[in-house]
C-alpha cells in the first residue's frame, strides 16, 4: 500500500470517528474513493476500529455494494425485480449483453423505486427509465 492511499484511508476513518457505528459509512467512502474495499483497506479499518480483520471482511462480503476488486469496466445496474419484469425487462437482457460486448458490466439489481416507468437502470447515481432495446443500447454506448 502506497503512502498516498494510506493517508487517504486514515483521513476517511478520521472523518467518521465521532459517529456511532462508523463501519458502514467508512466502507461507503472507501468504496467510492478506491472502487473497492481491498485487503489493505480492511486491515487498516480493522485496526482503527479495534475489530478483527475477519469481522471487517464479514461485513464487506455481506453487502452487495462493497466489492473486493475494482470493476474493470463501467457498470450498468439493470433492475430485474417484479415490476420491471412485468414491464418486459427480461426481453432486453440478451440485447443489452450483446450491445455491451464485454465493454460494460451489466449488473442485476432489485428495484430503484421507479416501478411504474420501467424497465429502469442506474449508472453511478444517474437513473434512467422507460428503457427499450435501442435506448438501453444507446445508454451502454455512451458509457463505453
Amino acid at each position: 500500500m502506497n503512502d498516498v492511499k494510506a493517508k487517504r484511508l486514515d483521513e476517511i476513518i478520521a472523518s467518521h470517528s465521532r459517529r456511532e457505528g462508523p463501519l458502514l459509512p467508512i466502507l461507503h467512502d472507501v468504496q467510492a474513493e478506491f472502487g473497492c474495499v481491498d485487503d489493505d483497506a480492511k486491515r487498516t479499518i480493522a485496526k482503527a476500529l479495534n475489530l478483527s480483520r475477519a469481522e471487517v471482511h464479514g461485513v464487506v462480503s455481506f453487502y452487495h455494494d462493497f466489492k473486493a476488486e475494482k470493476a474493470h469496466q463501467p457498470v450498468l445496474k439493470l433492475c430485474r425485480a417484479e415490476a420491471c419484469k412485468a414491464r418486459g425487462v427480461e426481453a432486453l437482457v440478451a440485447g443489452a449483453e450483446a450491445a455491451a460486448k464485454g465493454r460494460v458490466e451489466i449488473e442485476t439489481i432489485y428495484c430503484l423505486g421507479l416501478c411504474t416507468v420501467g424497465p429502469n437502470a442506474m449508472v453511478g447515481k444517474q437513473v434512467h427509465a422507460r428503457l427499450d432495446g435501442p435506448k438501453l443500447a444507446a445508454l451502454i454506448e455512451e458509457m463505453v
Partner: protein
Amino acid sequence: MATIRISDDALAIACGADDVAAAFEKAGHTVERVSSWGMQWLEPLVEIDGKGFGPASPEDVAAIIDGSSPLAIGTIAEHPWIASQQRLTFARAGKTRPTSLEDYEATGGWKGLKRAKEIGADATIQEVMDSGLRGRGGAGFPTGIKWKTVAGAKADQKYIVCNADEGDSATFADRMVMEGDPFMLIEGMAIAGFATGATRGYIYCRSEYPHAIAKLEAAIRLSAHIVAPFVLEVREGAGAYVCGEETSLLNSLEGKRGEVRAKPPIPALVGLFGRPTIVNNVLSLAAVPYILSEGGKAYADYGMGRSRGTMPVQIAGNVKQGGLYETAFGITLGELVNEIGGGTASGRPVKGVQVGGPLGAYLHPEQFDIPFDYEAFSAVDALIGHGGITVFDDTADMAGMARFAMEFCAVESCGKCTPCRIGSTRGKELIDRILDRVPRNRDDVETLPQMHNAPTGQRSLEDEITLLEDLCETMKFGSLCALGGFTPYPVMSALKHWPEDFGARVTEAAE
C-alpha cells in the same frame, strides 16, 4: 411570465424532467422544482397556473406555452385521479418545493410538533394510540403500543430509527416522502423522540435512492434548530434487501453484517446499541404530524375495521396509469387495478397482481373484490405489506415468477436461519425440476441398505409438488423473519391460481 412547476423527484428526472426544465429556462421562463403529484405515467408533468401537461419532452415547450399542446390534462388538482384520493400523508405532493422551509411552514408544517409539546409526551402517545395507526412497513403492528413500550423503558439513551430501506418492488411511497416532503418525516421523528424521550434519530435509507439521501441531508441541516434537542442523521444502506427487516437494520446501523436477530428481546426494549429503540417505517412516521395536528380521531375516521386511516397505495408494473394513490382502507383491489390503474399498459388482459412486494401473494382477477384491509388480505393468505401492487398481463409466466421468488430469497437471505438460507436454493432447484419435467432420481445415500424405508423409484411430479408444498410450510413456520417466512406466499399462490403454468400434469396433481 408564468412560473412553470416541474417535479424534481427521481422518477421525473429519470424520465427527463431536468432536460424539460432546462428547455423552459432557456425559453426565458422561471422554473420551480416541486415534489411529484404521483401521476407517474404523466411524468415529466409540467404545471402552469394549475394546468398540467404531460408526459413532456423538451420539444413540447413551445406548444405548452401557447396552449396548443395535445399533452394538456386540464387542472391537475381536479384530475379524477387526484380528486378521488384522500391525501393526508401526501397532502403536499405536487404543491411544495421539497427542501423549502418556507413552503413547509406555509402548508401547516411543524403544527404537529408544536401541539405535541403543548399537550405533553403522554397525551402525544395517546393521540397516536387513538389514531389506530399501524406500522406501514408491512407487519401492521400498532404504532402507539410500540411508542408506549419505549416511553416506559428506562435508559440513558433511546433512539428513533426510521426504516427507509424500501426494497420491495412496486413500492416507492417512502421515496416520494423523502424526496417530496422530507420535513414531514423529520417532524414525525421529532414528535416520536419527544413522546418517548429519545434524543437521537437515524434514517436508514437504501443506497439505491441517492436523490432521497441528498434531499434528507439538506432538510436535516435546514431544520436542525427546529427539532433540537433531537439530533438526526441519515445512514446509507449497502444493497442488502434483508436490512429492511428491523433487527437486521439495527445490526447494519451498528456496523455489523445485516443478520436478523432472534426476538425476544424486542427492539423497543433492546434495540440499537442495546438501547430502547423505536423502529418505524417512513410512512408510519410521516402520518404522525397529521395525527398530532388534527387529532388521532380525525385520522381514525378514515378506514375500515381495524385498519384505520389512509394507505398510500402504489400501483405499478404493467399498468396504464401507475403512481401513488392514497386512499382510506376499504377500497377493493379491482377498483385500484382496473378503474384507477386503468388496466394494463400493454392493453392485454390482467393475468394477476402481486400485492406487498417480493414476499406478497399473487392474486387472481377473481379475487379483485377483496377490500384493501389488513385482515381481509390475511384471510386469503395474502398481505398488504407496504401497499405496492404489481400488475401483470396475460403474457406473464407465473411459474417463472414463483421460481424468481425463491431465487430472490436465495440471493438476499442473510444466512442466519436454515429454512431461508437453504430452503430458498432447494426451492429454486425443485421448481426447475418441475418445469423441466425431470423428476429427481434417488441419490446414493437414499439407496443404501440402511435406508430401507425410503422409496426407491424416481420421484413423480406429484411427489415434487408435495415436496414443494412441504418446503414452503417449513420456510413459512421455521424462518426467523419475513424474508424466508413470506417467500412461500408468492410461490404457493402462483401454484394455486395458475397450475397450468407449471404444466398439465401439475394441474391434475394440484386438484
